[in-house]
């Protein structure tokens, strides 16, 4: 049997890898991939807690379904913005899109 | 009950348990054996499909087809396989090696995965999961990925263009297919494919003919057959996303495409034509396999018939057809079926069937009226006289001097 600690440590590790991706990458779409990893880690956490704490109530799974919908919406809008930025600036590297920089 | 396959399975399980293995390993060995048997069976039928395709297309085109290699050309697929195997295994310059080699494997694997949830007989199904319909959609989604990988890794702009068009077509047509797949789920109250077949006292093609038609059309679009075959239009983009593939890798794509057509046939007959249902199938379950494949080959023949009779649709017509016709129609049918299901909840089976059939016929008539009106409007707009150039007016005005008195 798998204790819940294994799932929680796995989810924490996935979250931190995604966090590193968001903070350290140059390309904007790679940052979006890091955000996707973080959202997936959160979902694994939710489902693990649902299974181990209250498997007869369905609240954990509903929360995870709403997270799916929000992630899909955010990726669509984010990529549309990146394509628009690419048309204006010719690049999606975050250190070349610095017009507002001090 | 004469059920040879379950008897053999139980006997083999007994043999393995007597050899002293734990029950976990016995399950795993039986599962692996089951996978090998189903995959071999389906791939052998795939070889027969190669021969069948070429014979049928020949007969449609008023010629004979392969008849030199073996009686009636039956050994022809073996000759094709040998030819593909002895071809040179090239990789284009600058191609992404791992992705290039992985794409045809993934394309064939996703087609084989669908066969794991199709029930062959009342007691014979690969894996009875309670979300079988969603599994089929998920596997189709992975198939699009394989096409995109193939187009990208070939380092060829025509392959990439072909891959873009293919993915646009496949993911567009997944939407009405998913909605049309929900109607049998609604009628059978379960998402498991074996459950849907077990609930079909009356075949669902009589209860939901519009959904059956939508599933049929979107299935043909998903597999990329004519009239939706601009994915490999030789005259337009030189064979599409599999230009750079030759030899056995192309063989995997080709075999995968034929098998996908038979899989859509099997899926259609499972969901709408009753699957393994037929006379005497409760007493002799092995007959279920015969009935299923008979129905699957019937639908496959209709798909081939359509392929060899119709020309190709243009890409903007195809996308218009999907988003402006099939998706609203599928949504309307789903809503109507759900509403009628609530109204007829206490009716007998016969009354339920007649009610659903009447609703579908009403929807068909309404659609035809709307299409007729739309076509009439278009025809009027095309038929009205447009202002044309009048040569007499041009000649007569050339001799006049310009009238400048009004300009001062």
């Amino acid at each position, binding site marked *: *049997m*798998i204790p*819940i*600690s294994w799932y929680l440590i*796995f989810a924490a*590790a*996935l979250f*931190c890898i*995604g*966090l*590193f*991706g968001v*903070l*350290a*990458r*140059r390309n904007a*779409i*790679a940052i979006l*991939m*890091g955000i996707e*990893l973080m959202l*997936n880690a959160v*979902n*694994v956490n939710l*489902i693990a807690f*649902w*299974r*181990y704490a209250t*498997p007869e109530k*369905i609240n954990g*799974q*509903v929360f*995870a*379904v*709403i997270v799916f*919908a*929000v992630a*899909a*919406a955010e*990726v669509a*809008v984010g*990529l*549309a913005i990146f*394509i628009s930025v*690419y*048309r204006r600036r010719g690049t999606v590297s975050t*250190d070349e899109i610095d017009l507002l920089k001090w | 009950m004469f059920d040879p396959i379950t008897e053999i399975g139980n006997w083999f399980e007994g043999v393995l348990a007597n050899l002293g293995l734990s029950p976990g390993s016995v399950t795993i060995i039986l599962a692996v054996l089951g996978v090998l048997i189903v995959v071999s069976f389906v791939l052998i039928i795939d070889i027969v499909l190669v021969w069948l395709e070429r014979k049928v297309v020949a007969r449609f085109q008023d010629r004979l087809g392969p008849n030199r290699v073996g009686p009636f050309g039956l050994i022809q697929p073996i000759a094709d396989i040998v030819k593909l195997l002895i071809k040179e295994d090239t990789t284009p310059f600058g191609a*992404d090696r791992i*992705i290039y080699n992985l794409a045809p494997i993934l394309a064939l694997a996703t087609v084989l995965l669908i066969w794991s949830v199709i029930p062959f007989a009342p007691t014979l199904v690969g894996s009875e999961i*309670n*979300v079988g319909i*969603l599994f089929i*959609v*998920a596997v189709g*989604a992975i198939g699009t*990925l394989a096409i*995109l990988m193939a187009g*990208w890794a070939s380092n060829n702009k025509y392959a*990439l263009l072909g891959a873009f068009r293919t*993915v646009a077509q496949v993911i567009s047509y997944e939407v009405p297919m998913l909605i049309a797949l929900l109607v049998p789920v609604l009628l059978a109250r379960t998402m498991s494919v074996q459950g849907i077949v077990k609930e079909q006292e009356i075949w669902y093609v009589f209860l939901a003919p519009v959904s059956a038609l939508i599933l049929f059309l979107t299935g043909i679009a998903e597999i990329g057959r004519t009239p939706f075959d601009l994915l490999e239009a030789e005259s337009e983009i030189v064979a599409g996303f599999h230009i750079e593939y030759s030899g056995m890798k192309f063989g995997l794509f080709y075999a995968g495409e034929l098998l996908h057509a038979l899989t859509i046939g099997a899926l259609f007959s499972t969901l709408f034509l009753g699957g393994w249902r037929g006379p005497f199938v409760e007493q002799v379950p092995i007959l279920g396999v015969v009935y299923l494949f008979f129905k699957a080959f019937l639908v496959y023949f209709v798909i081939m018939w359509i392929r060899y009779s119709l020309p190709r649709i243009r890409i903007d017509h195809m996308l218009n057809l999907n988003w402006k016709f099939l998706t609203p129609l599928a949504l309307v049918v789903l809503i109507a079926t759900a509403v009628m299901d609530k109204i007829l909840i206490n009716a007998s089976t016969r009354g339920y069937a007649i009610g659903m059939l009447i609703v579908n016929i009403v929807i068909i008539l309404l659609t035809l009226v709307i299409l007729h009106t739309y076509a009439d409007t278009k025809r009027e707009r095309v038929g009205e006289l447009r202002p044309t150039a009048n040569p007499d007016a041009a000649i007569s005005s050339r001799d006049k001097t310009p009238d400048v008195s009004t300009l001062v």
Partner: protein
Amino acid sequence: MTFIQLFFIFIAAATLGAALLVVTTRNLIHAALWLIVSLFGVAVFYVILNAGFLAMVQVVIYIGAIAILMIFAIMLTRKVSKVPKPAFNSNWIWALLIAVVMFGSMTWILNMWPQFEAIPTAIAPSIDPLRLLGVALVSPEAYVLPFELASLLLLAALVGAIVVAWESR
């Protein structure tokens, strides 16, 4: 070590390895493909956790739609340059530090939770999570309002994405 524990360790290692490759690869298409591998690993975890429906939804939505969308966006925003650009920006050491500290502190805090080593109880066979989920998403006492709001959010995102990415000539 039972079979299921070995299986868990194998899948977790594969998923975390693929995630590491996502955030370190310079070639973006390879990063997208490794992202697909790690998303598939998460789907396998959902199956182990008896949430089969969510596993299928994960494959359909994340791999079948979001990953393909990302690959399209990568192909549309590529700049073919002679000089290969580095993968990380100038803050990557701080990012590594923050990630490691965060992981350490999360594990330490969770360790202080008394039920950290809980074992799963068997689900009663009468409970069907799929049916419960369907009823919960449309019943007025449960979650029909968040469900409708999520669909409104998706509609807004759809219209917004089309408007933002529209090529105005």
